[in-house]
């Protein structure tokens, strides 16, 4: 249950090709995250899978059966929307019961499932409230509850946490992760949040302009980005990309080095620069350094609190084994 | 100066409106015309005059309001016209003058007067082989004629009569039918008589007549609607105001001008009150601040010269009728409107002071000249219209009417 295959799926809105023909396989039980810049087609892809949009060409198979022309309700998928899309006039209980009511499930079975979902999601005390009386995180959980009770073949999440504040986001992220472990159902998850993508995914799909740039596990993408786009997109603070002489030394058009892979010293090192801003987080320090050829500013991240301040001269040394090399076409070399 | 005139949208008044610039040019005054439908006009003018609103300098009012309002001093007396040799008030029929006077004062100058008679279509009578009555027929005979002439498949209805509710609309006709059937509104002690068998007979007759030989939707038709239907050739007979004769016989406005003739309105158990009496006249509210200009206009609009002007510009057949002897005897008028004599005779034969078979305390043929009548007449009119439309029976309609009339008369203190 929950194997999804896209075969040459293409989507045009009018004359605009938003998704050029694209192949993608999602294995049963996998947690797949779609990331990419705004407007790259993440939502569209998800909606194609859900059946909320028709494909222009190509096929979508769910568990081996062609689902291209099935209506959304028949695909056995559940979707959690960015705005939760709870029914504002129904109580939490009714919201969760709705898909079962539509499926004409017997009342007692409905109640059983509502209870168990509510318990799993810590919603038992709120079952009789309306969505308007819930906090963001609770609403989010109701939306998930509504999806769970259907026991779908796969869950589709479209930026489900983007409306929550940072603290809550961390909590919900872990809850969804645990849910996935428990249910072992396929999940497809759209986000533009680095941390979410890295921590939750079994497999990340990086999209740009409807084209898949790379598919792989989070650490694969972190360690071996296939091109400059993926390299810049994955990791925070962003990878420093250096062109010109320095790159030529590595016989590449561009080299990349992540901020956490650079050593700072006040006395000696490979590159010399001046501190612009130093951000002291207590646990880490982000130092933005100017004056280094081919990359301005260069960002460095060091653990703990480093006593540097604006205007200091510092020396940087990249970890040579962690330098990424890219050709003129932006693709990774070797 | 600017004067404001409230008028009803009848053809003769529209004509006056068209000709009025002559007066405006001659005097340098201007006129604001407020043209309204009859019911609305009556409501507006009554409100204005009763509260002394002073919105109008001249009003078109009828034979019903004039004596009542005059008696209350709401109108400016116009006695000085009697001394105006130019104007020649003596030329106006005394019957009409009296109808517009109260306590010996004249309160309005008439544009036209009317009674009712029967319009009929000579061609249709001939085609259907119906004999045209030579003397006053009975309503029974009239119903038979109408039934024979009724041919709805060809768009011709046996008779068109007023059905639209209102004391000045359907009750004008129904009132004369009631008179003919021997009914009256009140007995000598002002007790309403609407539950009398005579009223029942009259209204039953009316409803049956209209259902058997009338056009569809008759309960919405008033004088103007019927006039339009008749002129359009859709009616074989029509009992209504003589003042419409000119229009109906005017080839420029009517498709049946040369196929129409007239006979008296029918009688039944009596011939008293079988033709109504009405005149439309111009009066000056006491609240007007421009009496001189208003009088000047009044004089112009009801003078011999005015009738001359209408005759010349609109044709002598279209001249407002039934007020001035000199006009009715004018050769040009008689030539264009050979029926004029019939009309004058009919008008002069009406006696509003003795309208019914049995003696009554009131004057007025199709109305009762007391202020309360409007309300009662309207209500009864509504009830009769309901009976006509089949919304209630004649008995219910009259029972309701009687109840209402008793109530109103009690309220007003006639019944102690």
């Amino acid at each position, binding site marked *: 249950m929950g194997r999804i295959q896209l075969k040459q799926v293409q989507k045009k809105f009018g004359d605009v090709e938003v998704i050029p023909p694209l192949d993608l396989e999602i294995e049963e039980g996998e947690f797949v995250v779609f990331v990419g810049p705004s407007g790259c087609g993440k939502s569209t892809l998800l909606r194609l899978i*859900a059946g*909320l949009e028709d494909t222009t060409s190509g096929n979508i198979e769910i568990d081996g059966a062609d689902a291209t022309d099935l*209506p*959304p*309700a028949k695909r056995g998928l*559940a*979707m959690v*929307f960015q*705005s939760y*899309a709870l*029914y*504002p*006039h*129904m109580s939490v209980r009714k919201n969760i019961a*709705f*898909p079962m009511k*539509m*499926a004409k499930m017997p009342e007692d079975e409905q109640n059983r499932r509502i209870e168990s979902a509510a318990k799993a999601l810590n919603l038992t005390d709120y079952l009789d409230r309306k969505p*308007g009386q819930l906090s963001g995180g609770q609403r989010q959980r109701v939306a998930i509850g*509504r999806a769970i009770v*259907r026991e779908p073949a796969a869950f589709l999440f479209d930026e489900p946490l983007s409306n929550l504040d940072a603290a809550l986001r961390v909590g919900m992220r872990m809850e969804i992760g645990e849910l996935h472990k428990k249910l072992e159902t396929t999940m497809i998850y759209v986000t533009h949040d680095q941390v979410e993508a890295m921590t939750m995914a079994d497999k990340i799909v990086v999209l740009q302009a409807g084209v898949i740039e790379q598919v792989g596990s989070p650490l694969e993408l972190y360690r071996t980005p296939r091109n400059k786009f993926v390299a810049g997109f994955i990791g925070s603070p962003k990878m420093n990309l250096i062109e010109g002489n320095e790159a030529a030394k590595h016989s590449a058009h561009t080299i990349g080095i992540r901020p956490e892979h650079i050593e700072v010293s006040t006395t000696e090192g490979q590159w010399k620069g001046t501190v612009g801003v130093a951000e002291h987080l207590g646990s880490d320090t982000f130092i933005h350094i100017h004056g280094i050829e081919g990359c301005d500013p260069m960002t460095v991240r060091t653990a703990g609190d480093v006593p540097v301040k604006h205007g200091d001269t510092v020396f940087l040394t990249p970890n040579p084994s962690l330098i990424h090399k890219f050709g003129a076409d932006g693709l990774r070399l070797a | 100066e600017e004067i404001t005139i409230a008028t009803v949208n009848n053809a003769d008044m529209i004509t006056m409106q068209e000709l009025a610039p002559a007066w405006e040019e001659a005097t340098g005054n201007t006129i604001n015309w407020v043209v309204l439908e009859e*019911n*609305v006009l009556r*409501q507006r003018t*009554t*409100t204005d005059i*009763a*509260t002394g609103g002073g919105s109008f300098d001249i009003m078109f009012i009828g034979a019903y309001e004039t004596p*009542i309002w005059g008696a*209350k001093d709401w109108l400016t007396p116009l006695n000085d016209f009697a001394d105006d040799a130019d104007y020649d008030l003596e030329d106006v029929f005394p019957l009409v003058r009296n109808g517009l006077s109260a306590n010996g004062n004249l309160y309005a100058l008439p544009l036209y007067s009317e009674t009712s008679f029967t319009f009929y279509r000579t061609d249709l009578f001939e085609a259907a082989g119906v004999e045209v009555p030579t003397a006053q027929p009975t309503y029974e005979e009239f119903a038979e004629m109408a039934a024979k002439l009724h041919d709805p498949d060809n*768009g011709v209805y046996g008779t068109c009569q007023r059905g*639209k*509710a209102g004391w000045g609309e359907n009750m004008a006709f129904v009132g004369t039918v009631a008179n003919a059937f021997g009914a009256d509104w009140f007995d000598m002690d002002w007790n309403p008589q609407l539950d009398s068998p005579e009223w029942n007979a009259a209204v039953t007759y009316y409803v049956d007549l209209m259902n058997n030989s009338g*056009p*569809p*939707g*008759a*309960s*919405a038709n008033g004088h103007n609607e019927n006039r339009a*239907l008749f002129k359009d050739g859709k009616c074989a007979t029509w009992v209504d105001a003589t003042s419409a004769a000119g229009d109906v016989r005017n080839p420029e406005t009517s498709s049946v001008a040369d196929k129409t003739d007239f006979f008296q309105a029918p009688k039944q158990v009596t011939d008293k009150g079988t033709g109504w009496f009405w005149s439309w006249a111009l009066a000056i509210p006491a609240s007007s601040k421009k009496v001189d200009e208003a009088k000047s206009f009044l004089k112009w609009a009801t003078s011999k010269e005015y009738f001359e002007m209408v005759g010349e510009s609109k044709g002598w057949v279209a001249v407002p009728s039934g007020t001035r002897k000199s006009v009715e005897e004018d050769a040009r008028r008689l030539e264009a409107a050979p029926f004029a004599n019939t009309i004058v005779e009919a008008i002069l034969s009406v006696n509003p002071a003795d309208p019914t078979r049995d003696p009554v305390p009131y004057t007025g043929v199709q109305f009762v000249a007391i*202020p309360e009548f*409007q*309300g009662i007449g*309207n209500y009864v009119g*509504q*009830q009769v*219209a*309901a*009976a*006509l*439309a*089949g*919304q*209630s029976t004649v008995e219910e*309609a009259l029972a*309701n009417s009687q*109840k209402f009339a008793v*109530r*109103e008369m009690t309220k*007003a203190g006639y019944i102690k």
Partner: protein
Amino acid sequence: MATKASRSSARLMIAPAVILLLGWMIIPLGMTLYFSFLRYNLLQPGLAPFVGWENYYWFFTDPSFTAAMWNTLVLVGGVLTITTIGGICFALLLDRPMFGQGIIRIMVIAPFFVMPTVSGLVWKNMFMNPVNGIFGQIATGLGFQPIDFFGQIPMASIIFIVSWMWLPFATLILLTALQSLDQEQLEAAEMDGASWANRFWFIMLPHLARAITVVILIQTIFLLSIFAEILVTTNGGPGVATTNLTYLIYVSSLLQFDVGIGSAGGVVAIILANIVAFFLMRMIGKNLDA
């Protein structure tokens, strides 16, 4: 937001409106109330003696009174039903993607701009007149007996005309409300397996509840005092078939010029209107807060 300074200026700024409306309400209302205890007929000027509750007695015992109450109810109820249901249907239809939506919307809302008098006259003469009206001519052309609208089904005809005028209003508000429905909710319902009927019943209709109350409130305010349409078409008849409370008061005070009874009627109508208002306000108040 609320500091002392702003609260006192708020009071100052709301004052003109409140004072005007209070005056507008109290002065005529006071006079009406006062008149309702006088024997005051415009046609009998001069003395207007105090008569206590007599006018109320006469008004309540007016044979048309019960009919007028009933007619008011039927008229308001009928038009509300037609316009709300019709409005929902129209809104659903217009909400769908189509070509020339602008033009179609213009056609649908056009009746809202038509004067009541004009619309009464036009329907009465050009359409519902059994001889020359279009309906009559079509019926005759097809060999049927034309319907005498204002004679046979007067109230239905009035309801029809008034509904024609108010349907665009309901449609507009409901359409705007429908367009504000979060599309994701509908899609969620679709994912949840809801059919179109289910989506309408469980999602759209509840979403429209607020708009429907507003439609009902605003229309009731206007419909309670429907007058011009009746005046130009049926004059309240035949009989009292189309006499509503407003028209009955009109008859008393402006056709019979009995200001006393008319005022008593006015007071009754005001009380009734306020009872209706009270319930409507409560309903809408609740709905607007939510």
